[in-house]
């Protein structure tokens, strides 16, 4: 199978696609294990409720299965599947109207990573330098740094992010996708992707800082 762009399907993808088309049950389990959580993450970037996001994933899954014959390997099976989810979720978001407009993916405005009060004013000594340094988390006991409570803080902070930031940080940091793949799935520029990722990380960091500093 060679796509029009001349890029072939990777051997691993070709095998999985073949097994899915044959209805191999273990291929179903493999695909769900690899794709379900990130698919849900993408869907939740566009529609607000978990139940609506699950509906989107179901619709996307059916579209993927029906489209397997047309899968040409111009991207990986994973990227292709994520793009299908993103497209369906976007349509759904427009129909629901209460969901975010797609323009919200444009990183705009002035969002500070750290509160301005943390820095000296320009009329003070050390203008725009730290008033007091952030705490070195490497000095925290490992049980505290990596404990359940800390992960709960991270999960809660991610849940409360604006959708566009949440979907980017979910794919990049939670699921470990590369920046190029995220840009391709979400149809955003590399620069925009970095801004959204940074804002997301900064917001989560702020929550962690409040948690650790009590």
């Amino acid at each position, binding site marked *: 199978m060679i796509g029009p762009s001349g890029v072939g399907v990777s051997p691993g993808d070709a095998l999985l696609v073949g097994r*899915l088309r044959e209805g191999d049950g273990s291929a179903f389990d493999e695909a*769900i294990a690899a794709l379900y*959580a990130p698919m849900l993450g993408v869907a939740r970037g566009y529609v607000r409720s978990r139940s609506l996001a699950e509906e989107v994933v179901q619709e996307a899954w059916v579209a993927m299965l029906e489209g397997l014959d047309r899968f040409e390997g111009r991207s990986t099976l994973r990227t292709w599947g994520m793009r299908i989810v993103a497209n369906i979720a976007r349509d759904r978001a427009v129909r629901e109207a209460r969901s975010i407009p797609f323009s919200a993916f444009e990183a705009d405005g002035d969002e500070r990573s750290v509160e301005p009060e943390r*820095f000296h004013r320009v009329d003070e000594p050390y203008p725009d*330098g730290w008033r007091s340094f952030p705490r*070195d988390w490497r000095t925290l006991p490992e049980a505290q740094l990596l404990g359940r409570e800390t992960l709960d803080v991270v999960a809660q902070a991610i849940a409360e992010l604006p959708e566009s930031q949440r979907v980017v940080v979910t794919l990049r940091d939670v699921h470990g996708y590369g920046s190029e793949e995220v840009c391709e799935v979400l149809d955003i520029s590399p620069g925009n992707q970095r801004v959204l990722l940074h804002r997301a*990380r*900064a917001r989560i960091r702020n929550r*962690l800082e409040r948690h650790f500093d009590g």
Partner: protein
Amino acid sequence: MSGYTCREVVELVTEYLEGAMTPEERTALELHLHYCDGCATFVDQIRQTAALAGGLPEERISDETREALLAAFDELRRE
């Protein structure tokens, strides 16, 4: 080459970690980090934040959703 202030550095960390800076910008930023413990710690905190997000447990599929996806898959098999 003018240096960055701490307030500027905290906005540039992901650009830096992603390798998206020009060599000149990168050098200026690294010079700042070399002399500024506060910003070096901030960069480390952003790294740790990303790592902690990577350690979250995967969202589990609900039984209903799994059933629905499996039903769609079985239907495809019958065609």
